[in-house]
């Protein structure tokens, strides 16, 4: 029995407590105006390097402002921002995500940029509509950030595997259905003897090539939410995401499809296989034919398997049409920063002139996104535009905004967590597992 390491969460809580009394700091919360702008960044090394590279132009244009990049998870994880704020060490500028942006705006952490945008002529129309909308706070419709870029869920497929199976490649514009996807997945799944999942001799215990991977196996919302939406279901619905959609028939149908692909067809990577090696890596290594993912897969494939021959297509149609999920990363300023003027200058530059190539995201600034710097950049797949840019205009292209700040609880053990576990492990049919979940979610929403 080890005691000291179990004290970590208590120490975290205690450190948050003691942070209150902390007084020595150099960041924004010290309250002193400075020419040094502190920027909280997160992600892998390549992400941070890409941000620094993009900021070079700002540094050249503003020699009087010194940029100081602080690598923290603040922005990716709101809890980290909270401890920085309590310790009076919060940065001037941060990168938020759609998943926590509204909660930060609701708590007054982010500065209102609306008037500054108007004064400097930064227009809403300059950005991809669904993306810029996510930078408006649900509480008052005002802008509390500008997009760094966004991720769109698309289908990534291995061209060689499709050719070997004698299958046509998926239509890039998404003109195919989830039934087609399921059928291809079975044909693309091979056991050690080369039998595909349609063959009567297929050995599901000896699969060497899977047809499909969806992050439902983790389970992570960018994976299964687009499928739920395409079937007319969802987790939280309504403009303010304050309605439970889990007991809509479409939710069960979509989850049943994903469960069947894993446990009935044996053509999709299961949670157990995911634990051993993540499905996206299996796809990059050439052991999975299709995966649902976002643009970051392009960067990972280029680094880890440059010889992989792949392309991408928009996600398929469900009964309600084509749906995809968009995750937006936004530049935002800390509301209590003494350097708000410089922070705004930096945010404006990074979201407009300096946009593109930040954290492997698709730029939301139209001039850059539709220009040659992104669309014709070397190493980008052939159907980048159809798979990644065009779907952002679909009626069912939705972001994972969380206006109520309840998603962690909704998806956790008090909400959907147990049902999700039963579905992804094949213990219960989706409809049975989801029965009664809305009562739990309503309780969470009410609290």
């Amino acid at each position: 029995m080890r005691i000291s390491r179990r004290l970590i969460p208590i120490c975290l809580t205690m450190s948050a407590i003691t942070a209150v009394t902390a007084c020595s700091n150099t960041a924004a919360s010290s309250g002193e105006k400075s020419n040094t702008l502190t920027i909280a960044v997160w992600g892998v090394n390549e992400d941070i390097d890409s941000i620094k590279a993009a900021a070079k132009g700002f540094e050249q244009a503003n020699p009087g402002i010194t940029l100081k990049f602080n690598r923290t998870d603040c922005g990716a994880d709101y809890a980290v921002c909270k401890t920085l704020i309590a310790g009076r060490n919060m940065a001037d500028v941060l990168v938020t995500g759609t998943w926590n942006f509204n909660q930060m705006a609701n708590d007054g952490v982010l500065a209102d940029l609306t008037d500054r945008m108007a004064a400097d002529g930064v227009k809403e129309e300059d950005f991809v509509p669904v993306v810029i909308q996510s930078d408006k706070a649900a509480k008052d419709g005002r802008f509390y950030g500008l997009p760094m870029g966004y991720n769109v869920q698309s289908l990534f497929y291995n061209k060689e595997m499709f050719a070997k199976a004698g299958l046509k490649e998926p239509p890039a514009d998404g003109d195919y259905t989830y039934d087609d996807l399921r059928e291809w997945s079975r044909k693309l799944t091979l056991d050690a003897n080369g039998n595909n999942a349609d063959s009567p001799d297929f050995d599901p215990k000896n699969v060497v090539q899977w047809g499909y991977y969806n992050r439902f196996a983790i389970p992570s919302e960018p994976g299964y939410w687009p499928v739920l939406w395409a079937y007319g279901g969802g987790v939280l619905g309504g403009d303010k995401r304050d309605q439970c959609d889990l007991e809509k028939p479409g939710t069960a149908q979509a989850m049943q499809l994903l469960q069947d692909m894993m446990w009935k067809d044996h053509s999709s990577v299961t949670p157990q296989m995911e634990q051993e090696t993540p499905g996206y890596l299996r796809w990059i290594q050439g052991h999975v034919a299709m995966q649902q993912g976002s643009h970051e897969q392009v960067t990972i494939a280029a680094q880890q398997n440059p010889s992989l021959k792949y392309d991408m297509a928009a996600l398929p149609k469900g009964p309600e049409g084509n749906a995809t999920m968009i995750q937006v990363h936004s530049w935002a300023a800390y509301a209590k920063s003494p350097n708000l003027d410089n922070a705004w200058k930096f945010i404006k530059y990074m979201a407009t002139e300096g946009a593109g190539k930040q954290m492997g995201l698709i730029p939301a600034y139209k001039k850059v996104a539709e220009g040659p710097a992104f669309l014709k950049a070397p190493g980008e797949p052939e159907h980048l535009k159809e798979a990644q840019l065009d779907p952002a205009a679909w009626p069912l292209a939705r972001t994972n905004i969380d206006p109520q700040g309840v998603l962690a609880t909704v998806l956790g053990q008090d909400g959907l967590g147990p049902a999700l576990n039963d579905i992804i492990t094949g213990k219960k049919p989706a409809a049975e597992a989801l029965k009664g979940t809305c009562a739990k979610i309503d309780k969470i929403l009410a609290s």
Partner: protein
Amino acid sequence: MGETAPSSAQAPRSRARRREAGTALLFLLPQIFGLVAFVGVPLGVSLYYSFTHWDLVAPEPTWIGLENWTHLLEDERVPKVLWNTIKFIFTGTLSFLLMSLVAALLTYRPRRGVAFYRALLFLPYVLSQIAVGIVWRWMFNTESGPINAAIELFGVDGPQWLLDPATAMPAIALVTTWQGLGYGMTLYIASLHGVPEALPEAAKIDGANAWQRFRHVMLPMISPTVLFLVVTSLIGALQLFDPVVAMTTSGGSIGMAGGPDDSTRTVVLYMYNQMFNYNERLSGLGYAAAIAWVLALLTFVLTLVQWAFSKRWVFYAGEGAAKKGGQG
């Protein structure tokens, strides 16, 4: 003179005692300062926060009186997380105490190669709990994990381990026992070496068999170590967090750890959820501090109970002799 002589002799003694006490206090000051600054003050501050609501973002906490405490009594999740923690005490703590004793009994006698086995058993203790949790998560993998693969050799399907509410907590208990075994074993060995060899030998001459020698001679002699391990492992069990997070986190968020079906969410994990993951009316530092205090009080009460009961079964070698000497 006769009256003044004793007081004049006492005065220097008293001065010397005071000087001695002053010197002792001086030496103790760093420790006292450390205790006050790093234990006393945080305890006091956290107690204060348990009467406030603070999301860390607002400039100051808001005083809400007993609201966190009354909410704790109404919170439906508290009995569940307490029960999960108790389940771990009954599985993890008991198996740790027993298995490390067995390991100690098997390795405490000097034999050829025994040092190697001791080192091997102690090795997991020096590893990171998170790393161990991740490795065991793979070991328990029902499709590709080696444990179920071994079970399947006997033609039986293995359990679902971390995917089944009935087996998830015992699986975590197994891992913590495996990791802590070396630590408990080392303490037991040190204690077993302190037992005079003449005692079990005398019992053997009197006709006691191996079990009787262990039960009536060795066990009472090592009972202070057993008590120490019972108390410390119980405290550790009440603070269970890292292995649960490492082995049950899904979707990349600690907010989703504690499954399946909420069967492994412990008090400390719930405290973390309320502090960092949840956005409910009272979520934040204040409610988390109240949970921390409940945990601290629970630990204190259980430790007191153990001390009280220990008088019945813990035997201190010198104590009986001293008492007998005093009575004589």
